[in-house]
């Protein structure tokens, strides 16, 4: 028997009940990889982690991230995605201890590869872009970052990424955000209605 719905689109799917019994559960990890997305809201602000997306490849991850994390708000300056697997996270520290203070290896000074660093400055918040170093490998990048980017405020967790593993918007891509301003209908401010309520109440009391 076909499913009968109020929704004409559902009726057009022509779902018969016995066709539904055949669905097999997927394997636990039968799914797309995850990518972490970072957004820069303004020129003066650093890139900030906004959250993950699932995607079959980097380009799709970028598109999903654009839809998920920048479809709203008046401004977005730039967006980048990094495959989760390619982000090396340091351990977390506690009680105001700076994660850099727990690192004791000397930087090698080798400038083999380019790395980018993201700092977590407050528990519960998100990682922000901190800077760039040249180093031999991920651990070496942390050691090199210690001299360059350890500040007064403690850092609780650090993410290290190879620069080549980042897919980012280019300067000339900026016009992809231009449409945000045209989409006023997505903002609460476009739905003012107090005047209508007031007029309605006045008409009601005039009748009574």
């Amino acid at each position, binding site marked *: 028997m076909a*499913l009968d*719905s*109020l*929704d*004409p689109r*559902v009726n057009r*799917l022509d*779902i018969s*009940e016995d*066709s*539904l019994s*055949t*669905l097999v*559960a*997927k*394997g*636990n*990890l*039968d*799914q*797309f*990889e*995850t990518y*972490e997305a970072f957004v820069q809201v303004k020129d003066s602000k650093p890139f900030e*982690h*906004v*959250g*993950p*997306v*699932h995607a*079959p*490849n980097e380009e*799709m991850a970028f598109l999903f991230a654009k*839809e*998920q994390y920048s*479809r*709203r708000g008046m401004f977005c300056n730039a967006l980048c995605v990094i495959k*989760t*697997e390619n*982000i090396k*996270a340091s*351990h*977390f520290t506690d009680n105001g201890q700076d994660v850099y203070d727990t690192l004791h290896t000397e930087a090698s000074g080798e400038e083999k590869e380019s790395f980018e660093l993201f700092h977590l400055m407050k*528990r*519960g918040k*998100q*990682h922000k872009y901190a800077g760039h170093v040249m180093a031999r490998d991920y651990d070496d990048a942390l050691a090199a970052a210690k001299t360059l980017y350890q500040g007064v405020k403690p850092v609780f967790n650090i*993410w290290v990424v190879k620069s080549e593993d980042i897919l980012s918007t280019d300067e000339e891509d900026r016009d992809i955000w231009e449409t945000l301003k045209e989409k006023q*209908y*997505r*903002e*609460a401010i*476009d*739905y003012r*209605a107090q005047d*209508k*309520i007031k007029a*309605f*109440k006045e008409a*009601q009391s005039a009748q009574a």
Partner: protein
Amino acid sequence: MYGGGNVFETMKATALGDEDPVKLAEFEARIDRGEKIEPTDWMPQLYRKQLIRMIEQHAHSEIIGALPEGTWITRAPGFKRKLALMAKVQDEVGHGQLLYSAAETLGKSRESMLDDLVSGKSKYSNIFNYPAFTWADSCFISWLVDAGAIVNQVANSKGSYGPYCRALERICAEESFHLKYGHHCVIHLATGTKKQREMMQAAVNRWWAPMMHFFGPSDKISVHSEILMRWKVKMASNDACRQQFLDMYVPKIWELGLTIPDDKLQKNPETGEWEFTEPDWDEFKRVINGDGPCNKERLAVRKIAEERGRWVRKALLAPKSKYVTPLA
């Protein structure tokens, strides 16, 4: 969009007995200091389990909740309403994505959550098992079901699990558009022609009972909810959320000249609490357990999407790629 009245797992009295007491004390001290718990932190099994269940139910509610409203996109009155409703439904599905990722950081994969939704093993908000007969139903959902969801979500965004709180903050920011848009739609009908007013009133009459069910049965303090509240998993009782909703929205419904189908509904001037006819909890249980007007259809649509979209997923999957849990 999402309902309260989460179905939490029944707890055994010994559930905490196997946990390391030192780590447990540190964990509780962190929560007491108002700090967030992050995915890599130690946490009791029970905390992990209840959070997965709660966030997962919330995520399912978002994507199933998109269905009754999605029904009305093609028939929404005018281009502007169509655009807005489309944007809203896109938001809801986006919220689902954010929440699945947050739940995933606790160790359950997104696809296994979707499997559990389709097999009926895990639940979603009961209110979406009711049909949206007219455009006015869709307006009711956009305004008042979302309003109820906001009451819940704002409370939960102050909880203890970092990834869930961050997802909720993004979600709440977007919900403010839903709420204003929904209110705008309802005002338009309620202050319109006689026919429009009747349509709106009929929708309020149809949706009031499910709306009262939305926050879940009364949860008098039990050992169960006490520990979940101490760990800031559950932030407000079902009754408190329902009271807050009534307090904020009943006056706004009344000011539009609409009536609410419950003669006992009134605010007790002495206690400041709302009094109402006790909702029919047998019906609530019956519908949650599968026997509602739309349960079958909602799951069927989800299943058919899985089934007919399978080849696309398969074509896109890179079999050699390694899956890594999202970081935060």
